[in-house]
């Protein structure tokens, strides 16, 4: 599925003294099997933006299109099944006595038969490397495990796009790397991912395209190389190192991911 936002504006509390224009004309698109990295500082409008992706918030001006169709004309329940939104610190919403039941909650409400529900639960736990947690209490898990279970709960709805708002915030670096690997698995399974993150190094590893929000507008968008080399101030460490070496060794190219960068730097080392 292709999700597109066209010139989306959003104003909170319009017509009151508290009026704030959080989005000021944002256009972007996510295609099938694509990972879009959405970056920007606090207050840039990221969280407001992702809430438009399944119409939890409705644009003040502008449109949200699903495969070219105005999302406002779709059934809300259908839209929210197809566009899964995982908020920051999603583990706060875990509630059931076992992991299995927690993940089964949403698909069961879709009216699927028990066999299908079970299959979805198993499938999404497997995708997140959390099968062995099925019978455990979600409250007895570590932070990283809880986070994976919470994401599995949204994945069990069978979304075509998964929107992850700061999925690695507060996790240790090893757990963060595992989550990044999971995002790759999701993409390989054909699920599109919108990854909202402050961590440019993480976005560099996994994004197919990057969109930088600033003050409620799109400041830059394109491939990771286009965006990051266009603004080395707003770039991951790999790009900053390569940019610094570019003047003296132009053959270094425009590496972004860690492995690409390492290979390019090794060439410089050879002299």
């Amino acid at each position, binding site marked *: 599925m292709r999700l597109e936002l066209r010139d989306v504006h959003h104003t909170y509390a319009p017509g009151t003294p508290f009026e704030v224009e959080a989005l000021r004309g944002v256009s972007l698109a996510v295609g099938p099997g694509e990972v879009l990295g959405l970056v920007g500082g606090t207050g840039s409008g990221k969280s407001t933006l992702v809430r438009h992706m399944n119409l939890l918030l409705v644009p003040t001006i502008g449109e949200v299109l699903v495969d070219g169709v105005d999302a406002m004309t779709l059934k809300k329940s259908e839209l929210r099944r197809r566009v899964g939104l995982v908020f920051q610190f999603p583990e706060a919403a875990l509630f059931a006595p076992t992991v299995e039941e927690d993940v089964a909650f949403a698909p069961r409400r879709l009216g699927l038969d028990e066999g299908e529900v079970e299959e979805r639960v198993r499938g999404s736990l497997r995708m997140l490397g959390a099968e062995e947690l099925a019978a455990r209490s979600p409250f007895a898990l570590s932070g990283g495990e809880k986070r994976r279970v919470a994401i599995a709960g949204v994945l069990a709805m069978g979304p075509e796009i998964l929107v992850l708002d700061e999925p690695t915030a507060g996790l240790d*670096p090893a757990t963060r790397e595992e989550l990044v690997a999971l995002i790759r698995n999701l993409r390989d399974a054909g699920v599109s991912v919108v990854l909202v993150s*402050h961590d440019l190094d993480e976005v560099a590893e996994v994004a197919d395209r990057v969109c930088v929000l600033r003050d409620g507008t799109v400041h830059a968008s394109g491939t990771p190389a286009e965006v990051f080399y266009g603004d080395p101030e707003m770039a991951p460490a790999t790009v900053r190192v390569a940019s610094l070496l570019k003047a003296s*060794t132009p053959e270094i190219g425009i590496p972004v991911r860690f492995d690409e960068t390492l290979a390019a730097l090794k060439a*410089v*080392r*050879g002299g």
Partner: protein
Amino acid sequence: MQNPGTGTRTDGSLAISCEELTFSYPGSKVPALSKISFELRPGEYLGVVGPNGGGKSTLVRLLNGLLRPDSGRIRVSGHDPATEPFEVRRHLGVLFQNPENGLVAPFVEDDVAFGLENLGVPREEMRERVARTIRAVGLEGYERREPHTLSGGEKQRVALAGLLAVEPEILVLDEPTSMLDAAGRREVLERLEALRAEKTVLHVTHHLEELLDADRILVLNGGQLVADESPELLLSEPNLLRENRLILPVVPRLALALGLPANLRTPEELAEAILARAGSGTRAR
């Protein structure tokens, strides 16, 4: 503030001492901390790292008396946090992960004064201390701002000012940057760095790169203290790092993979080291 480094075990001369500290959460069979012993001398800067669930936050809660140990002994400036939590909190201030949880008052200056109001500090002195600490965290002009209108980094600096106003000798930093964006993280880290000369610091973090200046780093994993070493030594042990789910940040990781020292911190330092080596014509391997 320089530590005498005598290694004497009189508690009074130590900022923090823990001996055989053990704690289990109710209903849990596995201890969250198991026989932890370490010392922190006045003026030292100690880092604490380890995976989620390793025991880092439990240690912080034991140090300021929010939890009581099952066995073992803790002293903070000679006081036992379990029996004298209020005395301990004058000596040891904790900056927590989420600044939202700590901010209570309608205006920044009231928030900074909050801790002092409970200590019975005279009004005039209170005003003076609040002004001084607001300056120390670079928030002059924010006195009458409402905390909820501030950015994450600013909120965390307000929380820091509130701690400093109580004038503790020991600062415990419990992942104070993990919920901030890159800019917020930088502002908070800069302020904390400036405080290191005058405070004893215990800094819990997931970011090894924040601890490169530490005197020592403790590694906690599965409730055990698995290492108490200098940053140089720790970074030179890739197996120990891997076993404890510690991952080096991108710059030192690139440096190590290129056969350069892991204590290169910034992209600038790494680029310079690469050029220096290429220029000298040295070919590794």
